[in-house]
């Protein structure tokens, strides 16, 4: 809308973005607190609860999000953008708050996981309807020459939602003990309760907004769509564009987005074994420093077109994911530190604890096991070595470099056979390495900003006003929810099938991004659509 005054756009962006940010926050906290939620609502050993837990994880992201895109997309094209994304906000905020109020499994039994599953599905449904509305709303207010920049504010919300969720959880966690945090009515519920305040403010702001001018004009003329789903997916020419949006842009963007922001975090935690708090700190810095680039690439897309910025982000992911993840794995390899350096002269033992245990071996019978946890420091890096040393009866006093003896000298001696395959965890990097890791994660989030920053403007320009909400919401949520959301599942699948390569899981995002890059390069148009009034 070229004639729209730019001075009111700030308010429009703020009110739209705030609500979308809160919806992302609501959606993320469930995932981030999954471990605690699982203990409270889905206890181990109960097969029904386990089934409900799996449904909560997979159905909410894969099935319900695209379904929500259809339901609310249709509604947005039928009754208007304003009331639809107001409704998604109420549903999301309400269900998030209620999750925080559901008593645990210990108190109300199977009703607890059932209620949580239901509320999680409502969250997925609401999320499916939110983004398309916010992006469309801002784009339909924005002047043609700045559409990429203004819609890029909406693009920051998914990342900022993650930032806020991480920050609030860390803040609560650092101010109470683990026991207080994980108790049935403990601190883990606070982020859910906080949501109602955020949503309340956002609803108040959104209520004051007026309908999108383009949609209002269609409504006035009586030319809105009577069946947006049929027109979006039943009409060959529009359906053709939906498919192009999915396979030529959003599919690749989805895996780049997920790999940079979520897979990187879980890789650092589970494969590299970085200590919990430091891992979050790395991500927070990387996200904080990369977020302005959403705006930069949105702005740049107004100058040079959307296509090549998005595709370059994908291509960079394809080229650099394996080297980057390989470096993360290599640089924080405590096993290598121990193998290549002398523990006694080059490392210092900070703390050591040992706990006796027994185990049964078919050949040797009952064994006494000593579970040893030792915290070491090496060049400013800290790590924990966990060993299961075996204690066997020995004759006389034995003392050598590799063995030692314990016990009462008058009774018997136990020779310590050190564990040959100790495990290493809780790695705390020194400052130099920490900033190197922040830089590497930041680089991956820069790829995200390239692929994701201009995509709202790109999608808006691909579809006509009367079916825009429906047409852009579905490919967006399939690309992000399904293709992106599948990254950890397929990564596990690949890692289980091909066990020798620790980076094998990356072939899924690399493959999808490469495919999307080829399709996009071949078929997408780099032209900026100046007129979205049609």
């Amino acid at each position, binding site marked *: 809308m070229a004639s729209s005054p730019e001075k009111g756009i700030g308010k429009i962006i703020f009110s739209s973005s705030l609500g979308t940010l809160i919806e992302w926050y609501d959606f993320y906290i469930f995932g981030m607190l999954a471990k605690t939620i699982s203990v409270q609502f889905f206890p181990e050993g109960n097969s029904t609860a386990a089934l409900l837990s799996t449904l909560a*994880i997979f159905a909410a992201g894969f099935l319900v999000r695209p379904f929500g895109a259809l339901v609310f997309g249709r509604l947005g094209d039928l009754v208007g953008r304003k009331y639809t994304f107001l409704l998604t906000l109420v549903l999301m905020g309400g269900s998030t708050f209620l999750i925080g109020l559901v008593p645990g499994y210990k108190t109300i039994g199977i009703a607890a996981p059932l209620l949580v599953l239901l509320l999680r599905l409502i969250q997925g449904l609401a999320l499916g309807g939110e983004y398309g509305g916010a992006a469309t709303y801002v784009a339909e207010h924005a002047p043609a020459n700045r559409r990429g920049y203004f819609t890029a504010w909406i693009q920051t919300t998914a990342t900022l939602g993650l930032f806020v969720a991480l920050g609030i959880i860390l803040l609560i966690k650092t101010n109470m003990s683990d026991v207080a945090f994980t108790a049935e009515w403990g601190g883990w519920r606070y982020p859910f309760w906080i949501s109602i305040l955020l949503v309340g403010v956002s609803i108040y702001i959104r209520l004051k907004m007026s309908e999108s001018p383009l949609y209002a004009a269609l409504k006035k003329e009586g030319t809105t769509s009577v069946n947006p789903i049929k027109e979006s997916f039943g009409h060959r*020419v529009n359906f053709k*564009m939906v*498919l*192009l949006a999915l*396979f030529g842009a959003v599919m690749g963007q989805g895996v780049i987005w997920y790999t940079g922001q979520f897979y990187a975090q879980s890789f650092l935690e589970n494969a590299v074994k970085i200590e919990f708090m430091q891992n979050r700190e790395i991500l927070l810095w990387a996200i904080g420093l990369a977020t302005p680039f959403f705006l930069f690439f949105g702005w740049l897309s107004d100058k040079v077109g959307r296509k090549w910025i998005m595709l370059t982000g994908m291509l960079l992911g394809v080229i650099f994911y394996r080297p980057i993840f390989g470096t993360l794995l290599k640089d924080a390899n405590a096993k290598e530190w121990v193998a290549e350096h002398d523990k006694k002269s080059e490392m210092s033992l900070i703390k050591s604890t040992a706990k006796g245990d027994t185990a049964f071996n078919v050949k040797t019978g009952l064994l006494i096991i000593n579970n040893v946890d030792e915290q070491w420091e090496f060049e400013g890096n800290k790590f924990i070595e966990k060993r299961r040393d075996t204690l066997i009866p020995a004759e006389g006093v034995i003392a050598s470099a590799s063995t030692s003896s314990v016990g009462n000298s008058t009774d018997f001696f136990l020779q310590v056979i050190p564990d040959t395959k100790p495990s290493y965890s809780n790695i705390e990097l020194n400052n130099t390495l920490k900033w190197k890791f922040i830089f590497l994660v930041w680089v991956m989030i820069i790829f995200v900003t390239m692929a994701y920053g201009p995509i709202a403007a790109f999608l808006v320009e691909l579809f006509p006003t009367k079916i825009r909400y429906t047409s852009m919401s579905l490919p967006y949520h399939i690309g992000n929810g399904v293709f992106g959301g599948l990254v950890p599942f397929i990564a596990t699948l690949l890692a*289980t099938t091909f066990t020798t390569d620790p980076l094998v899981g990356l072939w899924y995002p690399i493959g999808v991004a490469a495919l999307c890059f080829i399709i996009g390069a071949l078929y997408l*148009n780099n032209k900026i*659509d100046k007129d979205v009034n*049609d």
Partner: protein
Amino acid sequence: MGLIWMLLAPVIIFYLVKSAVHNIGSGGTKDINQPVPWIIIITIFTPIAIGLMIFGYYALKGEYDHLPESSEEI
């Protein structure tokens, strides 16, 4: 290239079904060893794969050689 996209779709579904059969009930405790995620994933991926086939068909027919420039063409 359209033919490649069309052929890719059944390959993806075949790989998913094969992986599901291989991993379900193999004794593991991960998500890939449970039937529910596979049912959900194959259910959602089947229409996506069909969409990829249709996309390939359109590409083969040259329908993406000229993209619509206004809603008049849609």
